């Protein structure tokens, strides 16, 4: 039994597309990359307006023109059009997000006080799409330590697209979050069925508290006759105790092939020897891992496809 209410909520914010397999990459010319991508999709007038705003604000930054430009993107660009780019991070963004991030890259060049004052003023008054742009831009922003609290707070949103702009395809949480904040972020991702393979650092930031919380959540769900996303168990590798070993054994015997795939991936990576007894049960899945036919990425993408299909029906 899936949590249908949460799946349904995926479609909530007027039709944002979920794009897969984005990898955060930083280039020194991100502003140009964004402008090039926008030039290919948006009207010449809109792009020329944006270039004009960028050059004006670069030379002579003032708050009000920056606010008007950042918000006013909505008057000139199309939110329903997504941009194409060889850069995996920005490919698939809608025009509003791309244009606003280009403007934030101008703000990023200003002195610390100006930057922090305007960034937080805009964030505190932002509508949904503006918040998405602000959080998507975090990775390229200066003074990141001063922005961590805003990102943690943003994750409290129940709007899936805002949550995604921080948690998915974004290196910021991995680099800056405390273990406590990280654990909350991943737990919420599991809770609302987000694709965990798109969280940067999902392996590197594994910790004991998270592994225990995942087991607790699984037991709660099972008690209610529901399931958790099989990707969740990836965060338990390296923290297998008796209870979690029992959970993996349960998954290994599941009728659901996704559960067995996840159990096999955990067994294949776990070095403590505590799961060796599962190897026979999972022989088929383990051989798929060896031949490269099964990985966390392939499982994650499969789960994501299922979520998307569900949200469209």
């Amino acid at each position, binding site marked *: 039994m899936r949590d249908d209410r949460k799946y349904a909520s995926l479609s909530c914010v007027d039709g944002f597309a979920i794009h897969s397999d984005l990898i955060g990459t930083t280039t020194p010319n991100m502003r140009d990359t964004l402008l090039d991508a926008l030039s290919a999709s948006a009207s010449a007038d809109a792009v020329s307006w944006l270039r004009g705003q960028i050059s004006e604000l670069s030379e002579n930054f003032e708050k009000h023109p920056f606010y008007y430009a950042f918000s006013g993107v909505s008057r000139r660009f199309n939110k329903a059009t997504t941009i194409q780019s060889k850069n995996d991070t920005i490919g698939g963004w809608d025009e509003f997000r791309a244009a606003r991030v280009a403007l934030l890259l101008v703000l990023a060049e200003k002195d610390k006080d100006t930057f922090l004052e305007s960034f937080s003023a805009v964030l505190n*008054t932002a509508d949904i799409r503006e918040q998405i742009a602000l959080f998507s831009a975090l990775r390229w922003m200066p003074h990141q330590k001063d922005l961590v609290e805003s990102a943690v707070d943003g994750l409290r949103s129940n709007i899936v697209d805002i949550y995604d702009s921080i948690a998915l395809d974004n290196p910021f949480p991995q680099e800056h979050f405390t273990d406590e904040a990280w654990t909350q972020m991943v737990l919420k991702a599991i809770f609302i069925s987000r694709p965990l393979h798109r969280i940067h650092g999902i392996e590197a930031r594994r910790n004991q508290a998270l592994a225990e919380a995942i087991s607790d959540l699984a037991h709660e769900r099972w008690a209610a006759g529901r399931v958790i996303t099989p990707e969740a168990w990836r965060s338990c590798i390296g923290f297998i105790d008796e209870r979690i070993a029992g959970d993996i054994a349960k998954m290994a015997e599941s009728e659901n092939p996704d559960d067995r795939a996840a159990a096999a991936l955990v067994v294949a990576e776990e070095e403590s020897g505590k799961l060796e007894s599962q190897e026979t049960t999972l022989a088929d899945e383990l051989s798929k891992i060896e031949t490269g036919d099964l990985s966390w990425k392939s499982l994650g993408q499969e789960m994501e496809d299922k979520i998307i299909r569900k949200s469209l029906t």
Partner: protein
Amino acid sequence: MRFFDSHVHMVSRTTDDYQRMAAAGVAAIIEPSFWQGQPRTEVGTFKDYFNSLIGFERFRASQFGIKHYCTIGLNPKEANNEKLAEAVMELMPLYICKEGVVGIGEIGYDDQSKMEEKYLIRQAEMALEADLPIQIHTPHRDKKKGTIRTMDVLVDVGVSPDKVIIDHNNEETVKEVLDRGFWAAFTIYPHTKLGNERMVDLMLEYGAEKIVVDSAADWGISDPLAVPKTAALMKERGVTIEEIEKVTYHNPLAAYGQSGQVEEADWEDHEGIDATALFEGNTLFRGGQDIDEAMSQYLIE
């Protein structure tokens, strides 16, 4: 028939109202920033109010298939608190160019004090700077003088009359407003402002050009169905369908469309009611309600 009610304060209305409005054909609405019945004392309450206009109220309307826009402004009553007014002037530039913000409003005079004039001018200048329409509230007391004074001030600042919607007109103000090239909006509001029989008489005299009909429904005894009800009365009294559509739909769209933030396509291809959508964890949609009873009495006195 579809309607565009360009003045309605939905934060004060119930979900029953939204259901009846949607059922009666109200496709899009504008919610002007307004005072809340008692004075606000902190700028933070303005910020949260503006956030609700671009956030939760817009979402709530969408739950009923209604496209919600707003105007952002400092109303004249609260303009008399100078310290607060200054802080709101600092806040407004963060909002006025946002998606779905179709103008500065509702602004104008209440007591016609000097302080009210100061902030009317400041906000008119802001509208010029951001190239936005202005939604004008005309005073309840000394209305005719206040309306003329408002137009004089706006022209002095350099605002084009074509970008200004003067609201709450009556038989005494309409001629000069139209003669000077402003949009003339009429609020059909029971008991205190204008009943819809008078509105029909006004249309028979002045036609439909640059005339807008709205409800201004708020926290008082008012009617969120005033626009469709007035359209029904106009039809009964022989106003042409083309003229009815003009004053209840096309004219407000043209006037506020100058913001570049509203166009018919926004609701023509919208997805309809999504009963499962969530905003900050809240769902609102409930079962349907009978519209016939609500529309059966369409005379507003």
